[in-house]
Structure formats: C-alpha cells, structure tokens
C-alpha cells in the first residue's frame, strides 16, 4: 500500500499533503492534551510493531505480496490520534531511509495508512465493543474486526487513488502518465487482496495482542481511549 513516486499526479500528491497538514496539526494537539507519560513506552513499542509488521511480506502464490499495518491496534490501545502520529513516523522513515513509499506521495500514504486506517478501524471497534467489560471476549473480537476493516478501507482508498490516475491523465495516444491501470483493475487488486489475505494479518495480530493485554491486566485495556 506504499504508493511509490510517479504513480500519482502532482495534483493528487498536493491534495494528500493539503489534507494531512491539518490532520498532523490536530494529532499533535490532541496527543499533547491526552497522552499520559506512562503510555509513552507503549506508543514507542507500538510504532516499532507497525514498522516491523509492514516488513513481513505475505505472498499470494501466483499473485502479489502485501502486509499488515497494525495501526488499528494502536488506535484501540492508545487512541486514534496517537496511532496516527506513530504510523506517520514509521511511514516517513520508510520513505526517507528505505525508499518504501514515495517522497512526493507521503501525504497520500499517511492519509491511507495513518489516518483512514486507524480511524475507520477505531470507530468500528467502538461500535462493536460498545459498553462491554474491558476483559470480555467482545473486546478482542471487536479489535480484530476493527483492524481487518480498517486496513481493507485503507486499501480501497489506495486502489481508488491509483485507479483514477489513468482516467484523468493520459497522452493523446492513450498512454498513461502515472499509474497505468484503471479502477476496474486497481480496486480488485488493492481492496480484494486485503479482503482475501493481508487484512487477516492485522485481524490476527490485533486480536492476539488485545487478548494478551487483557490477560496481563494492563491499564491500556481498562481505560477507554476517546478520539
């Protein structure tokens, strides 16, 4: 889901950056207001988790590869704004140091994986977990479903962003200028592969880790993080 340089038009990249600028400002403000000192080590290990899970590429035999993101898990435990910051830091380092995801489309990649993903997943988690007790099964199941839904939603958005390029930008002879595949290819490829395979990585990891923290009686489970 890390869109490389050249696959999106400069206008698309600018829109991504323009949308992310206020989100970064609000995230830092919200985190300043709500992040507790004892949560900081968890946010640090959470950002490490998101980075490393993105390195474990899962192959679809005969198809493409992909990975989990882990952003919804962070949102469930530490709130979606803190999750946004942690995943953005991971994405910036991935782009700058490892060339994973473009520099020009950093805004769009943050929008997909650090904003849409944790927020969509977080609200679905809240909807399903409702007022259930912190240690109930319903909590880890809600986290797993939220994690799955969040990454699928982000993949759908990435598919749309890539797919509209062919529609909007091409030379008179029909050659594409940026991502050459249209929506009818990009959406099944991006959304479909996450629904079928990669989304389940986040499903399993979020479910397992929330259950682990329930068993450990962690304060992260007892306190409800609001958006």
């Amino acid at each position, binding site marked *: 889901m890390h869109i490389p340089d050249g696959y999106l038009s400069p206008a698309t990249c600018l829109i991504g950056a323009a949308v992310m600028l206020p989100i970064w400002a609000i995230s830092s403000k919200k985190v300043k207001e709500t*992040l507790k000192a004892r949560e900081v080590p968890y946010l640090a290990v959470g950002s*490490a988790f998101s980075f490393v899970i993105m390195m474990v590429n899962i192959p679809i035999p005969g198809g*493409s590869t992909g990975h989990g993101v882990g952003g919804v898990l962070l949102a469930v435990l530490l709130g979606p704004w803190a999750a946004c910051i942690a995943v953005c830091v991971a994405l910036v380092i991935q782009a700058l*140091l490892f060339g994973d995801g*473009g520099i020009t489309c950093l805004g769009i990649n943050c929008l997909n994986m650090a904003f849409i993903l944790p927020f969509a997943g977080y609200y679905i988690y809240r909807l399903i977990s409702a007022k259930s007790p912190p240690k109930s099964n319903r909590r880890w199941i809600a986290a797993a479903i939220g994690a799955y839904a969040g990454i699928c939603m982000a993949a759908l958005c990435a598919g749309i962003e890539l797919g509209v390029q062919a529609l909007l930008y091409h030379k008179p002879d029909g050659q594409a200028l940026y991502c050459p595949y249209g929506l009818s290819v990009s959406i099944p490829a991006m959304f479909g592969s996450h629904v079928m395979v990669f989304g389940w990585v986040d499903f399993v990891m979020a479910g397992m880790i929330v259950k682990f923290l329930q068993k450990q009686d962690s304060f992260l489970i007892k306190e409800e993080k609001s958006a």
Partner: protein
Amino acid sequence: MTIIKKLWLGIVVLIILTPLGLILPHYFHTQDAWGEWDPDQLKNMIGYIPQGIARLADIWKAPLPDYNFKGGGNMDMPHQCMAYVISAIIGIALISGLVFFLGKVWSRNND
C-alpha cells in the same frame, strides 16, 4: 517481566521473522506489491514507462533501498536476509526513538 518487556520480546521475535517477508515471496515467485513496480518491470508489463513514472521514480535516492544495502539486489538470499534484519533493527531504533522522544515531550504536562 514487565508487560512492556514482553512486548519488546515480541518485536524481537518479529525481527527474526522478517526475512520470511523476503524468502516466501521469492519461494512462491510472487510479484512485487501491486502498484509498487520498478519502471523496468512496468515496461515489461505494459510495453512502455508512463512519462510521470519515468520522471519521478528516481526523485529520491534512499540510503537503504528496499531494506537492502545499495546494489545489494544481486546478493544471494542469506546476505539479503541479513541486510533485511539489519534494516529492521535500524528502522525500529529510529522510529521508536523518535516516537518515544515526541511522546515524552508532548506528555510532559499530563498524568
């Protein structure tokens, strides 16, 4: 052992498992992630390199491209796996260090 130490232990396990992210796709002959092809690879697929991709693909030269040493693409699998694990450790140190620092500064007045 504290919970945070157990979680870091989990990260160490994941670091050890990261080479699977290289080996499995290689073993199953899968393509790169969808929409993340090199310009040359794309040319093989559609017959040309879209102008914008030709212009922008190399706009940034990452020091450890694709979690590998520069020019390491021709190395054998064990060496690539080693570079991958080292990349994971460097990335985690930088990212968790930065997030820890930001979190410390931002959470100063809370508790």
